[in-house]
C-alpha cells in the first residue's frame, strides 16, 4: 500500500480536477488557469534540467517550445481540421485520441532535434558564451517561423481547436485538461527518473566540475547532448499542449520574454529542485492571475518581487532540496521514486 499511496493520490487529484471541470464547478477561467499551470510546470521542470541540474545558463527555452508548438499544430491541423493551404482533414475525428498524442510526440521530437543547435556548441562552450548561443537559437527559430508563409508567418497559425472538438465530439470530457495534467505528471516523472538514475547522475556531476566528471568516466559530451535534447524535447511537448489549449499560436508569444518567464520560474523555485520548479510554476501562474488588476504595473511589481527574492533568499523557494526532504517524517506513509 505504502508503495502506491503517492501515485494513487496524484491520480485521484487529477480525477478530482477533471470531474470538477466536467461538472462546471470549475468554470472555463479556472480550468484554463489550471491548464497554463500544467504547461508552466512542464516548462520550468524541463529548463531546470539544464539551468538547475547541469548549471548552464540557457535563456532560449521559448524557441524550443515554439518548435514543438508549431510542429504538433501542423500535424493535428493536417489530420483533423480544414485548412486553406493544407486541405481537408485526412483522418476521421475518432482517431484524434491516437493522433493527438502522436502529434505531440512528433512536436517534442522536432524540438529535441532543434535542441541540437545548442547541444553541439555546448561541447566546446560554457557559461556566458553558451547563453548567447541559446539566445541566438531562440531568435533564429522565431524569425524562421516569421518567414514561413505556410504557418501564417507573423500573423500566427490556428485551427488546432478542431482536435479538441473532435475528441469531445466522441466522448464529452475536458480532454485538453486531461492531456495537460498527464503531460505535466509525465514530464516531472521522467525528469525525476532521469536525474536519479545512474546515467543521470552525470548531469549534476558536470555542474559541479566538468573536468573532474570527465576523469571519473562521465562522457560529458554525451551527457550534455542527452540533457539538452531531453530538456528541449519536453519544452516542445509543453509547447504542443500550449498551442492546443489556446487554439492559436503566433511567433511573438515564444520570444525572449517567454524564455525569461520560464527562467524566472526556475530560479524562483530553486535550482536543481523539481518540486521547487513545480511549486514556482504554480505560484507564478497564480501570481500572474492575481495581479491582473494591476494592469501595466503587474510587470513592474513581479520583477521587483524577484529582485527582492534575489536579495533575501537567492537560492529560491526550495533551495536545492525537494519537498520530501523538508518533511522527512511523512516518508513512512509513502515511497517516492
Amino acid at each position, binding site marked *: 500500500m505504502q508503495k502506491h499511496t503517492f501515485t494513487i493520490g496524484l491520480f485521484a487529484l487529477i480525477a478530482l480536477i477533471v470531474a470538477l471541470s466536467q461538472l462546471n464547478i470549475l468554470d472555463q477561467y479556472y480550468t484554463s488557469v489550471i491548464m497554463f499551470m500544467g504547461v508552466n510546470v512542464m516548462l520550468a521542470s524541463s529548463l531546470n534540467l539544464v539551468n538547475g541540474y547541469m548549471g548552464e*545558463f540557457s535563456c532560449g527555452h521559448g524557441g524550443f517550445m515554439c518548435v514543438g508548438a508549431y510542429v504538433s499544430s501542423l500535424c493535428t491541423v493536417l489530420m483533423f481540421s480544414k485548412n486553406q493551404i493544407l486541405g481537408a482533414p485526412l483522418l476521421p475525428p475518432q482517431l484524434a485520441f491516437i493522433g493527438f498524442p502522436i502529434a505531440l510526440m512528433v512536436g517534442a521530437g522536432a524540438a529535441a532535434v532543434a535542441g541540437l*543547435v545548442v547541444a*553541439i*556548441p555546448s561541447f*566546446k*562552450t560554457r557559461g*556566458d*558564451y553558451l*547563453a*548567447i*548561443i541559446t*539566445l*541566438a*537559437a531562440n*531568435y*533564429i527559430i*522565431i*524569425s*524562421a517561423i*516569421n*518567414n514561413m508563409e505556410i504557418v501564417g508567418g507573423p500573423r500566427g497559425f490556428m485551427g488546432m481547436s478542431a482536435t479538441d472538438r473532435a475528441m469531445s465530439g466522441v466522448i464529452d470530457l475536458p480532454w485538453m485538461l486531461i492531456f495537460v495534467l498527464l503531460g505535466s505528471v509525465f514530464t516531472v516523472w521522467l525528469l525525476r527518473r532521469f536525474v536519479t538514475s545512474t546515467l543521470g547522475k552525470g548531469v549534476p556531476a558536470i555542474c559541479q*566540475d*566538468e*573536468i*573532474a566528471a570527465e*576523469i571519473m568516466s562521465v562522457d560529458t559530451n554525451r551527457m550534455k547532448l542527452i540533457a539538452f535534447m531531453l530538456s528541449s524535447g519536453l519544452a516542445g511537448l509543453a509547447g504542443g499542449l500550449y498551442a492546443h489549449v489556446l487554439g492559436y499560436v503566433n511567433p511573438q508569444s515564444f520570444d*525572449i520574454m517567454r524564455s*525569461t518567464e520560464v*527562467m*524566472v520560474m526556475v*530560479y524562483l523555485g530553486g535550482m536543481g529542485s523539481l518540486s521547487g520548479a513545480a511549486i514556482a510554476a504554480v505560484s507564478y501562474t497564480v501570481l500572474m492571475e492575481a495581479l491582473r488588476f494591476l494592469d*501595466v*504595473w503587474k*510587470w*513592474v511589481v*513581479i*520583477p*521587483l518581487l*524577484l*529582485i527582492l527574492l*534575489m*536579495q533575501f533568499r*537567492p537560492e529560491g523557494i526550495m533551495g536545492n532540496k525537494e519537498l520530501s526532504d523538508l518533511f522527512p517524517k511523512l516518508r513512512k506513509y509513502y515511497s517516492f521514486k
Partner: protein
Amino acid sequence: MEIFQNILNALQFGSFYALIALGYTLVYGVLRLINFAHGDIFMVGAYLAYFVAVTLLGIGGLNLGLHVDPALALAITVPATMILTALVGVTLERTAYRPLRRKGADRLYVVITALMAGLVLENGNLALLGASRKRFPDLIDKVIWNLGGVSVTNLKVVVIVAAIAVFLMLQFIVTRTKIGMAMRGISYDKFAIPLMGIPLDTIIVVTFVLGSAMAGLAGILFAMSYPILEPYMGALIGWKAFIAAVVGGIGDIRGAIVGGFMLGFIEIGVVAVFPSTLRDLFAFSVLLIILWLRPTGIYGVAQTTKI
C-alpha cells in the same frame, strides 16, 4: 553607388551597436557580470534626452518657460543626458548589484537581478508614461550632402565619428590610465585588489558611470536619427548589442567595436540582398557560426579552468 550607401548605413547602425556593446563589455570586463539591464539604460537615456530637450525648447516636459535655441539646447542636452543616464546606472549598481556583491552571492543571481531590473525600467516607463510614442524634437537642421550618388547626412557622420571617438577614449582610459589599470586588475583578481589599496567600489562605480554615459550618448544619437521613442526600443537593440559584444570577445573594448560594426554590416548586407524580414535570421545564424568556430569570440581569450 548603392554599395557605398549601404556601407554608410552599416557604419551608422554598427555605431549604435558598438556604443551599447561598449557598456556591456566594460561592466563585464570588470565584474564578470552581464548587465542585462544595459539595453534598457540606453532606452532611459533616449527618454531622458527627450525630456531635457523638450524642457529646454519649451514644448513640453517641465514647464520652465525656457525657449532655448536648438543648437544651444543640443549642447546642453548631450552632457546633461550623459550625466543623468550615468546616475541611473550608478543607482542600479548601488541598489541592486552592490548588496548582492557584498553578500558574495553567486554570479547567476546578479544576472537574474539585472534581467529583472531591465524589465522594471522597461515596464515602469510604460506604466508611467503610457504607451503613446514620443517624438524627439529636431535639434539640428538636417544637411544632406550628395557625394556622387551617395547621400550623406550630417547626423550619420556625427554618429560614426562619435562611436570611433568613444572607442579611442575608452581604449585610452583602460590601457593607459591608473583607473584603467585598476579596472583590469579587478577583472584579474577581485580579492587581491583591495589589499593593494585600490578602492574596489569606486572603480566599479566609475565603470558603471562610463558604460551608462555611453549608453546615454547612444540614446541621444539614436533618438536624433530615428526620432520615435517607445519603452521597448532598448530591448531588441540591447540584446543585439550584447551579442555583438560577445562575438567580438566580451571584456575587450576592441571586441565591442569590431562586433558592433560586424553586426551592422551583416544586417545591412542581408537586407541589401534578401527580403528584410530575413534580417534577424541571417544575422543571428552568422553570429552562431562565428561562436561555433571561435567559442570565445574574436578578441576573447579562453579561460583556463583548473580541477
